[in-house]
């Protein structure tokens, strides 16, 4: 294991925040630079980075997402919250052109996801819920693949790859195969990779899921540094402290948006004095357990953990 000892991500970013990264209390607090925005969408860039209007997706009889409407301003840090099966991942997949909407429309940086998928793909960066890396390749080879897929010109590729490796603190592990990496290292690699082509919007699907507290904090510091540079981030999460650190959160349940706003306002409105986002979450989505059937992907992951076969 070679998690680098240095903390705090980039010194420049820490300085901008006026001190050490604000993650010391164990709660992910809103950093000074962004809290000034107060989460009001209108104070960000002119054109929204993401616009969603009546977006819906059904799979046969199952309605996974039922008429979602919201927008994310440029430079905003937005989290989608919701219980299992609420439609978070389906929404992200529609916004990233992996899945066609069955109703409504959505656009990313002004490009329609259904009509201009090629454009949308060029302006977005994506980190999936579980690693989308080739485990038989090295970190460097994975980044090379990305550089080619995103049309980074040959003469810029080397530099882009080196920058990404430095950013992910994986310079020493660059030529090791990814299958030997810890969960945290894989995530850092994926995050650095998603930034290689300078996306306009970064989509993160449960970015810290399955990481230990150290890995989670390290990754969060990286994400926090990005927001201070003004990158638009749309993430889904189960981790409520992380969501509390966002500019705005949207809570969805059963494919519908039940509440949207800055975390502080939501707490004041639904949980009252001394409450937190978890109280809001439970108040809005109920206490009922959400058991999901294992998806094909879950089956494959458990198969992989049992040792897999042939295909790796």
């Amino acid at each position, binding site marked *: 294991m070679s998690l680098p000892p240095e903390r705090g991500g*980039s*010194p*420049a*970013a820490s300085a901008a925040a006026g001190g050490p990264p604000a993650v010391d209390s164990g709660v992910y607090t809103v950093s000074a630079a962004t809290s000034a925005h107060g989460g009001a969408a209108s104070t960000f860039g002119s054109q929204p980075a993401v616009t969603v209007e009546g977006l819906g997706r059904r799979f046969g009889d199952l309605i996974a997402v039922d008429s979602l409407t919201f927008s994310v301003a440029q430079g905003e840090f937005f989290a989608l919250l919701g219980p299992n099966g609420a439609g978070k991942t389906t929404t992200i*997949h529609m916004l*990233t*052109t*992996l*899945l*066609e909407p069955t109703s409504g429309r959505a656009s990313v940086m002004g490009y329609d996801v259904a009509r201009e998928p*090629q454009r949308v*793909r*060029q*302006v*977005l960066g*994506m980190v*999936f819920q*579980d*690693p*989308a*890396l*080739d485990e*038989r*390749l090295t970190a460097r*080879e*994975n980044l*090379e*693949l990305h550089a*080619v*897929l*995103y*049309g*980074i010109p040959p003469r*810029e590729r080397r530099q882009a790859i080196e*920058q*990404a490796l430095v*950013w992910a603190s994986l310079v020493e592990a660059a030529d090791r*195969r990814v299958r030997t990496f810890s969960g945290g290292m894989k995530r850092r690699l994926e995050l*650095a990779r998603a*930034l*290689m*082509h*300078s*996306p306009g919007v970064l989509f993160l699907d449960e970015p810290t899921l399955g990481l230990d507290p150290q890995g989670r904090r390290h990754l969060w510091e*990286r994400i926090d*540094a*990005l927001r201070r*540079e*003004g*990158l638009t981030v749309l993430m889904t999460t189960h981790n409520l402290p992380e969501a509390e650190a966002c500019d705005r959160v949207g809570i969805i349940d059963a494919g519908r948006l039940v509440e949207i706003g800055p975390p502080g306002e939501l707490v004041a409105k639904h949980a009252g004095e001394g409450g937190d986002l978890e109280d809001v979450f439970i108040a809005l989505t109920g206490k009922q357990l959400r058991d999901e059937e294992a*998806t094909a*992907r879950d*089956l*494959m*992951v458990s*198969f992989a953990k049992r040792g897999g*076969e*042939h*295909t*790796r």
Partner: protein
Amino acid sequence: MTAPAVTGRRYAKAPPSWAGIAPSVVWVMWRREMLRYSRDRSQLFGGLSRTVLWLVILGFGLGAALREIEGYSYAQYILPGVIVLNVLFAALQCAISLVWDRQVGIMREVFVSPSPMLSVALGKLLGGATVSVIQGSIPLLFTPLIGVRLTVWSVLGAWAVMFFLGLFMTALGVIIAARLKTFEGFGSISNGLIQPLYFLSGSIFPLRGVIGGVGFLEIPQHLREELRRLGIFAIGGGWVVQLPGWIQALVYVNPVSYQLDLLRYVLLRFQQLPMAANIAVTFGAAPLAVVFAAWAMRRMASADR
């Protein structure tokens, strides 16, 4: 250390392409397949052990009883079949890994990229075909043992057939893989696809032919060739066998039969099916399957859940 990744260049461009073919993407996907192959020794080992089992053990074992098929020793007769078997395994293993890559591997990363799917598919298929040629060449190393003499032309010809067979089978595998949601073992592919295609291709028994014969192999080469020119493929004790009609029908509808027959002609100058059909199937089926495979991968990319 700064965090330079966000600044600088604005957004990605689609890789340079013409009519959906981006050479850089084809190359990088092909290279990925090659790197994966070079790091999976079990595949090379599988190819070796298959060759020893079929060509050496079955070849000499059953060959002791069968003696000859149309003047060829049994091991010589099944050489092209063993090559085909290795190609089938290599191609389908490469194709089926797509199911894995899509659920828990790199394919989702590829699907959200601005790269044209046709190029991604081409890189993958060409990669599968290249691995097929390498794996299919393993039995060629055993030819001195079974008395088949190779020439530059027969090797080049065999590689060409292996390449097109590998391309065809990888494409067929991709079409199947695109429909599979989950995948927990190669066994079903092996039993359900590879073995039927292999057994019903005339690989280990001839469609029709003179089997048996005495001492043909001990006859000097020039005399043997002269006898063959006269239409004599065995002397003494041979008998003509013909497969039952229903097996014959299955062999005729199996495309691999034609590819195998061409390979057998290239290596042994022996064929059982019309040459025109062999050439048409070998070089025609592959491009056709590639088109369908690229289409299947495109559909898979947009229907991911």
